[in-house]
């Protein structure tokens, strides 16, 4: 090998090692900094529901709950819409329209999250408080999810804002998966006398099942970690409530809110432990999705 090639190889290996090192280093740093909190609260940190900086009592359950609930709402809303977009783009749309629409969706993904937060606060919250909330209570008020006074901000608002933010992720990934379904399979379907709908449902969706599942999980991953927009519309009330109208907190919103003015070692340590929990949740969610995609590729 020429000397230049060798140097280049070393450099490339080194660059990729930096990433691995960064992730491991980040994990270790989070772990070490949260030791005071882990020691003080132990496993109770995950199941306690109080966040009281005055008495230095910290529990993470409402934050974990809020993170999961808002992410699930967003997935429930965005997943069907995204699949619809992806089917339209890959199967139904004329080529010119496809390019324009793809571009607009990608643009949606590039809008700063702050903008979505402002939309949630200025437009969506009065709408939920005065229109959507009373409407839902009228027809579904017997369900515990829709009880209590709608203040406009809370789990529902955050879930809707998040769903708009993750539609680009899920729809563009699903489209890729649909496009990857071989053309001859579709043609085989038509040859058997299937209608367009049957081809989409049985051939395309059937083939792409694990792929769209992975796309959903990756969208979920983005929703779990979103911070700025959620903080603006979640309501920041440290509690657990089944009602989707109720204000709550997420892991990221607690960290954003409390970190800047945090005084005292224990509180900072508890905040870092929250970050550690989010790190672990995201790590497993992403790992799960990757595993699914890999399996799909290997099956081919």
């Amino acid at each position, binding site marked *: 090998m020429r000397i230049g090639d060798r140097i280049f190889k070393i450099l490339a290996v080194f660059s990729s090692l930096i990433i691995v090192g960064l992730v491991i280093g980040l994990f270790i740093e989070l772990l070490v900094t949260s030791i005071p909190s882990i020691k003080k609260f132990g496993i109770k940190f995950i199941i306690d529901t109080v966040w009281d900086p005055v008495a230095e009592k910290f529990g993470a359950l409402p934050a974990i709950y809020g993170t999961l609930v808002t992410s699930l709402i967003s997935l429930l809303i965005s997943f069907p819409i995204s699949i619809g977009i992806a089917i339209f783009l890959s199967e139904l749309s004329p080529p010119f329209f496809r390019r324009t629409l793809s571009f607009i969706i990608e643009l949606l993904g590039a809008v700063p999250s702050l903008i979505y937060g402002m939309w949630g606060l200025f437009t969506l919250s009065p709408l939920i408080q005065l229109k959507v909330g009373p409407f839902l209570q009228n027809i579904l008020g017997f369900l515990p999810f829709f009880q209590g006074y709608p203040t406009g901000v809370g789990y529902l608002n955050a879930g809707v804002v998040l769903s708009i933010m993750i539609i680009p992720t899920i729809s563009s990934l699903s489209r890729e998966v649909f496009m990857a379904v071989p053309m001859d399979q579709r043609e085989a379907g038509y040859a058997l006398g299937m209608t367009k709908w049957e081809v989409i449902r049985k051939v395309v969706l059937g083939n792409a099942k694990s792929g769209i599942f992975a796309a959903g999980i990756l969208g979920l991953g983005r929703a779990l970690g979103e911070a700025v927009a959620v903080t603006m519309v979640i309501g920041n009330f440290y509690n657990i409530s089944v009602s989707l109208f109720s204000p709550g907190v997420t892991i990221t919103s607690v960290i954003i809110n*409390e970190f800047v003015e945090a005084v005292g070692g224990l509180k900072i340590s508890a905040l870092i432990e929250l970050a550690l929990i989010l790190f672990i949740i995201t790590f497993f969610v992403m790992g799960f999705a990757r595993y699914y995609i890999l399996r799909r590729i290997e099956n081919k």
Partner: protein
Amino acid sequence: MKRILILVLILLLVTNVKAAMLLNGAGATFPYPLYARWFYDFEKISGIKVNYQPIGSGAGIQQIQAGTVDFGASDSPLPGKDQQASNLIMIPSVAGGIAIVYNIPGVGKGLKLSREVIADIFLGKIKTWDDPKITSLNPNMKIPKINITVVRRSDGSGTTDIFTHFLSLVSPEWKEKVGAGTSVNWITGIGGRGNMGVAGYIKNIVGTIGYLELTYAVQNNLPYAMVKNKAGNFVYPEIPNIEAALENFPVQKDFYVYPIDAKGKDSYPISGYTFLLIRKNQGNLEKAKALISLVNWIYKEGDKTAKDLYYVPLPQKVKSMALERLKELNYQGKPIH
């Protein structure tokens, strides 16, 4: 090429000479709009540049303790013994009032609220605006029957510190259940991030009540309440009433003080100082002198700008006490003059 290099070198030298003195400060966000104006004006007349980073009171205290800045700034006072322990002095720079703001359809500025009612609202005990406890204080106002939504800061803040000290003072129940601090375990309501976050919630959500620094209440055109003071009068959070409160509230040498519930017929009951933190033992004589001249300039020339921006100038006696404290600064064991 050579000529250009020489030119660049000369330019560098010249700019170096001009940027001779730079003071670095960091901390509180509440006085930042005023500090930015003050430091700009100060640089124009003195040539001393002040670089201020509004990174939050807690971080400001940490930075001055770590010695990475020339002065720190905080909205909540550091107790005297902590000042001693870190070899710091703390002096107030300016003061401000905290307004109770609300969004009730059809109700403008001047809703009358007693201390007990404010505490009960924030304790979640008064739930609707047409509660007899509120309507009996405001017989002339038509208050609709809508739910009260409490809005407070979700981030740690000096404003919350002052407001919760007020609630703890007027309500034993609040003191026992929640207490006071830059961030507390709220019983009810929704949290907005920063003064702007709270203002945003109050503007957009019907039936809300919250607390804001006066500046933000005025800038956002939000109606604010008259609060009953110690003397039994309902007063607005306006500059003369806050000045009256500061005038009537005794301060100690360490300035660890919350000027809350002051006596006097015009005194507005919820106000607070914001502070500068300076190291006692100065390592650089020129910088120390610059700092002292900065504080002197603020006390002498800063009042008008402060009032323009709805901050409240310090009473004369507080200024003289602070200047007295400034004499504790020393360089290599010798006082600085």
